Structure formats: C-alpha cells, structure tokens
C-alpha cells in the first residue's frame, strides 16, 4: 500500500514538475520577447504615425460592429467613445441581439434614431433582422435590431451590413482610446493587406473615471478582485500575445477589440454561432484558411492601442466568465484538433496548438492537481514535505514573479498607471495571487473543462455594473 502511494506521489510529482518547468521556460521566453519588442519601441513618438494615418487618403475605411445584448448600462458610453475616435472614415453599427432590457430604446432615444434602409449582403446566414435605424445626429451611426441568436450571429449580421472592406468588433461594454483604431489599423495599412486581422490591448475600466465614453482619469480599482484581473490582463496581453504575434502564432485576439478583413471573414464563413468562444474560433478559422490556401497573410497583436472593458466585480460573475472562456477554448481546440502537430499548419500547428492544449487548456487541471499535491505532501511529511516546498516555490515563480514582472514591464514601457501607489498595490496583490486568486480561477477553468465534456451550456447572465459610465466603484 505504502509502495503504491509512494509510486503515485512520485509519478504525479514528476508530471507536475515537468509541466511547471516547461511552462516557466515558455513564459520566460515570451517575457524576453515582449521585453525586447517593447524596449525597441518604447521611446517612439507615436504621434508622428498617428498624424500620417489620420488622413483619409492614407487610411482604409472601417465598419465598427458593436454587438449588444442587454447592455443598457454601458452601450451609450461605448457609442460615445466610438464616435470620439480619431479616424477619418468609419460607420458604426450597433447590433441589438434581441435584448430583453432597454438597450435598443436607450440608443434610439439618446442618438435620435429613425427607421432607415441600409443595403446588406446575405452571404452569411443569420437570424432575422427586425429593424434598421439611423441616427439623425450622427449619420454614420446605425442600429440593427435582430432576433436573439448570440454574439456570433449578431456579428455576422454586422458583417453582412458592413459597407467597408475592414470591420472592427467592439463589445457593447467596452470603450476605446481616441487613437486606438488608428493604431490597430497601422499594421493592416502598412503591410499592404498582408495583415488580415489585428487585435489590440484590452484593459479593465472598473475604477477609472469615465466621461462621455472617454477614460478621463486613470485610477486603479479599490477592489482586490478587480486589481487581480488588471494584473492578469497585463500578463496575458503583454507577455503572451506579443511573442505569439511576432512568430505569427496568434490564436486569440480579444473579441472586445479586433479588426478583420471582411473578405477573409466571408471566406472563413463568418463567426461560428455554435461555439461559445466565437472570437477565438474566428481567428483559428482565419489561420486555417491562410495555411490551407497557402496565402502570404498573418494575424497580429498590437500592444499599443487600448480598449477598456468592464470586468466582473463579484466572484459569482467572474466564475461564470472563466467557465465560459474555458469552454470556448476547449471547443475551438477540439473543433480544429486536426491542426495540432500538423506540419501543414506551420508554427500554428506545431507550436501554437500544442501550447494552447498543454498550457491553456489542460494546464489548469495539472496546476490544480499541483495544489492538491502540495496539501497532500504537507500532510504526508518526510521527503514529500520537501516536494511540497519545491512545488510551492515553483508556483510562486510561475505566478507571482511573472505577474510582478508584467506590472513592471507595463509601467516601464507604457506607463498606463502613473501613480506609484497603484503600481505598489498591484505588486502587493500579485504576492498574494498564489494563495487565493490563482486556485480560484484554476478551479473555475477546470469546471469549464468538465462542463464542456458533459456538454453543459448554460452560463447565466453577465451583469454589468456600468463601469464604462464610471459607475463601478
């Protein structure tokens, strides 16, 4: 019996150690990549580039799609921020996906909208469109009311109605910095169309002062749960995505703020209305299309342009969000499992897919197993006590050190949070991440994994607190 326990402990200990070593190495590499890239661009006067692209002659017109389902708390702020964008030619399409609250009414009233006609293609099949409205104040602002069909379906309606060759997707609860669209479009314009999709940096708006859809004062939220998410976003966006983008291995660009070539979106069949993570699914389909058709095209992540989005403020809502994200991730990976380790798909198949399977998808299970292992090993004492200490140190290295490193990297390169107190708070909370935030999110992600396997697809509403109106604190 003792021998069996010893064998089991050694086996799982070995698996967890090897996993942690691989992940720490991968993250270290990505961190170094991000550091070098940000160091190179840190002092660049970006206004020079902004000035060049602001001229309509040099830019490409963009249709901005805002799918909204029960977003009455934040949709007006979101629209204001999009109307304030420094971009020469846009049209703004708000797609009300059969909201049961006052989303459409609020938009119609606020922007003085009247029924109107707008030509639409029917290349993507969608739920029925009910009405189309156009603002009398801002003629480039449209509202499309449709039957409820989910975010993917709403976006497909938007693509059908989009007039311009590129479309930008923004969540109904998100707001953009003034130059964000200009900057996210830069790789598309300068690459001569080779960049067919680009995503920007997403940050958390909770706690910030927001005035008419513009973040007017940077303040870190007073809620530890929100601050931990701020740090988490910094880590994910700065560390992971910069490196993956440099190697053309991007599989996720946030649906909260991304730009796509309409032609590629049509060819990829539009958004999938069956999957939960429609944003990841779209990027994977485009990467697949690029490789299948051997096209000289790429998907890029641009760290500079910022989209502010609302984060869950309660454990219950955060739990639902993380469960849903993980289900979406697994569904996309499973749907395109044939790309895994398939040389036909280049670095996406050989490196990106295995990384997402191992670290992002199955990783939480192994890491949660690590926590259980640490507790068990502590109780068993003897040699296992040392195993537990070693594993705990690796957790600290993996969680805390990378989190603090990301906070510092962001502060050094972009300086979004200018107050020293805010930086110290983020760092202090990062020190506690391993004991509460990390295990909680791991548990929720594993829940998502289990729910995916049992095909459970109910996840409840995501209540909004109106952070884009500066109402979150």
């Amino acid at each position, binding site marked *: 019996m003792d021998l069996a326990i010893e064998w089991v402990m050694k086996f799982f200990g070995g698996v967890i150690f090897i996993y942690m070593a691989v992940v720490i190495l991968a993250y270290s590499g990505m961190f170094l990549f991000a550091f070098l890239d940000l*160091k*190179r*661009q*840190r*002092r*660049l*006067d970006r*206004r*020079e580039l902004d*000035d*060049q692209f602001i001229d309509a*002659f*040099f830019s490409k017109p963009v249709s901005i799609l805002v799918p909204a389902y029960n977003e009455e708390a934040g949709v007006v702020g979101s629209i204001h921020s999009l109307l304030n964008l420094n971009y020469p030619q846009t049209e703004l399409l708000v797609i009300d996906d059969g909201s049961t609250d006052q989303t459409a009414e609020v938009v119609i009233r606020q922007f003085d909208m009247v029924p109107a006609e707008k*030509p639409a*293609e029917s290349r993507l099949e969608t739920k029925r469109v009910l009405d189309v409205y156009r603002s009398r104040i801002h003629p480039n602002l449209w509202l499309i009311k449709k039957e409820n069909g989910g975010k993917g379906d709403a976006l497909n309606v938007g693509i059908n109605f989009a007039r311009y060759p590129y479309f930008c997707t923004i969540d109904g609860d998100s707001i953009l910095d003034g130059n964000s669209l200009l900057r996210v479009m830069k790789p598309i*314009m*300068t*690459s*001569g*169309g080779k960049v067919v999709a680009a995503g920007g940096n997403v940050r958390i708006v909770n706690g910030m002062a927001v005035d008419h859809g513009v973040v007017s004062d940077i303040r870190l939220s007073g809620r530890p749960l929100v601050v931990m998410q701020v740090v988490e976003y910094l880590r994910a966006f700065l560390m992971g995505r910069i490196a993956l983008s440099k190697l053309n291995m991007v599989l996720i660009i946030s649906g909260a703020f991304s730009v796509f070539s309409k032609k590629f979106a049509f060819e990829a069949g539009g958004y999938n209305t069956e999957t939960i993570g429609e944003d990841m699914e779209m990027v994977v389909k485009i990467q697949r299309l690029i490789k299948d058709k051997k096209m000289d095209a790429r998907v890029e992540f641009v760290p500079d342009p910022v989209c502010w989005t609302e984060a869950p403020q309660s454990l219950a809502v955060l739990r639902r969000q993380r469960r849903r994200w993980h289900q979406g991730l697994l569904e996309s990976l499973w749907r395109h499992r044939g790309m895994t380790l398939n040389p036909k798909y280049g670095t996406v198949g050989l490196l990106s897919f295995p990384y997402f399977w191992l670290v992002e998808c199955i990783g939480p299970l192994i890491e949660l197993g690590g926590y259980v292992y640490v507790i068990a090993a502590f109780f068993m004492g003897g*040699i296992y006590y*040392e*195993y537990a*200490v*070693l594993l705990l*140190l*690796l957790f*600290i*290295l993996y969680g*805390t*050190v990378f989190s*603090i*490193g990301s906070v*510092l990297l962001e*502060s*050094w390169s972009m*300086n979004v949070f200018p107050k*020293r107190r805010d*930086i110290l708070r983020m*760092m202090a909370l990062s020190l506690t991440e391993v004991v509460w935030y990390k295990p909680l999110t791991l548990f929720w992600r594993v829940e998502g994994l289990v729910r995916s396997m049992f095909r459970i697809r109910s996840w409840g509403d995501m209540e909004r607190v109106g952070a884009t109106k500066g109402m979150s604190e």
Partner: protein
Amino acid sequence: MTGISVTTVSIGVLLLLLVLVALTVYLFAARAVQERKMEKAKAYLSRNNERWYRVLRGMEDVSAEMVPKNKAELAAVEEIFRAYLTNVSGDKIRERIRAFADGHLAPFYRKKLKSRNWSERMNALYRIEDFGMESLLGDVHTLERKRLTADERFQLLLIDLQFRPDGFIGRNADRLGNLSEYEARQLFFLMPEPVFEEASAQFGQLDPILKYGMVEVLGMRQDLKKLPFLEGLLDSEDPEIRIRVLRAIDAFGIRTPDRILERAFDSPVWEERFLGARMLRRVPADEAARYASRLRDDPSWLVREEVRGLLARQREAAEDLAVLR
C-alpha cells in the same frame, strides 16, 4: 537530491524577487527623473512660448536663452515647432524653424541618429524631415550604409525626396520596388511636380504597387490635365489598375465621359461595373436610367444594389422637385 533542488529553487526565487525589487526602485527613480524633465520642459514653455510666437512671426530674433540646453528643453522646443508646423505653418515659419533647427538642434539629432535604440533613430529621422534639417544630410547618408529596418529605409527615402528631388527616381529605383502600397501613396503624395512627372513618364516600368499608388494620388490631386493619361491606363491588362483608374476618375467629381462609362459597363470585372454604376450619379437622370437598365440584372449583387440605390435617389429627387413646383 530534493534538498538540493529546494535550496536551488529557493535561492532562485529569492534572487528573482530581489531583482524585481531592484527593478522597482530603478523604475521609480527613472520616473522621478522623467517627472523632473517634464517640469523643466514646462518651465521652458512658460518662459518662452510668447517669445517663440514673436520669433516665428519674424517680430524678434532668437535669443541665447531660447536655445535648448538639455533634452527636456529640446522636447519643449519640439512641441512648439510641431504645433506651428501642424496648425499655422507657412513658408516663412517653416524657413525660420529650419534655420533654428539646423543652427541649434543638429547636435542633439546627430547623437540620436547614432543611437542603438531604434525608436531614438526613428524620432531623429522624423524631426529631420519635419524641420527640414539639411545640415544633417551627411549623417543621414552615413546611416544609409548600415543595416536598417524598413521603416528607417522609408524615412530615408522621404528625406532624400525632400532635399534632393533631382534624379530621385533613378537614384532610388531599387528601393522603390520594396515599398508597401501605403508608403508608395505617401511618397507620390509628397512628390514635387517635376519628380512626379518623371515617375509617370516611366509608369510602364514601375512595380504594380507603385502604379497603384500613383493612380490613387492622381485621383486625389484631381488634375484634369491628367485625365487622358488615366484614360489611357484603362487599356491595362491588370484589372486592379483599371479599377483604381475608374475610382480616380470618379474622384475628379466631374461627369464621366460616355466612352469611359461604356468600357466600365462592358467589363467582365464586377468592380469596374460597380464603379461605372456609381459614376452614373453625375449623369443626367434620363441617360442614367438608360445606362442603369443595362445593369439591372447584373450578376453581382453589389452592382445591382448600387443601381437600385441610384434609381431610388433619382426618383426621390424627382418627387421632391415636383412638390416644389
């Protein structure tokens, strides 16, 4: 074995945390320096803003106190110059900025051009172009011999175009082939007329990307003298050229000659028929209706939609006119 691992990892984690603490201290110190720099720049601005107004308007000469002594003051002067160049630029103001930059700012930018940091070099190249600093041309040419990024190479081209327009096309033939369409447009947009003429005379030998850029710029310039040149390009075998030519002609804002419309409607390429349909908005209603009937059953949905929209708008206009009468 495990004991050694625990010790090693403990020391490693501890060291990393110490490094992070050191980095935090460094970061905060760097911020304090940056803040002081910003205060100095602000102080320079409040001291000299009015004076710069008078100097750039030619009402006063530059005084020694206005010459920047450090990076903070340089940043302040750059802000002032950028603001004037963007908002109130005129030839005289531009010339005064150039003279001051050549006389007093060159050492700063010379140093930046030699920097190992890419963004510092790029910023220096931007300023040399913005302020028209001819005195640094020698340093810029030295830079040309080094391994540079595509962004730097393009900025060098813009500087070369600004200061040595004669023979620009021949001198840079190899480099022009590597431009993106965005860069090609920007280059043609900034080209003085004689250089543009030289380039258009060699249109057939240009790379497709350059051809596209040139046609787009021709459309933007709306120079009617170029209409025959553009019309001649409708014989091109490259449909992309023909499409862009039609778009450029449409951008002229005049009634498109019938022969061009006919060619567009007969094209097998839907984009050409679409642009032809769009051009009908400047054709008298009865003629437009006649043309539109040819496209009413077009295989492309977009062409049909454009024709439908055109007819609807004309109908509405006719009804409005009837009411007014």
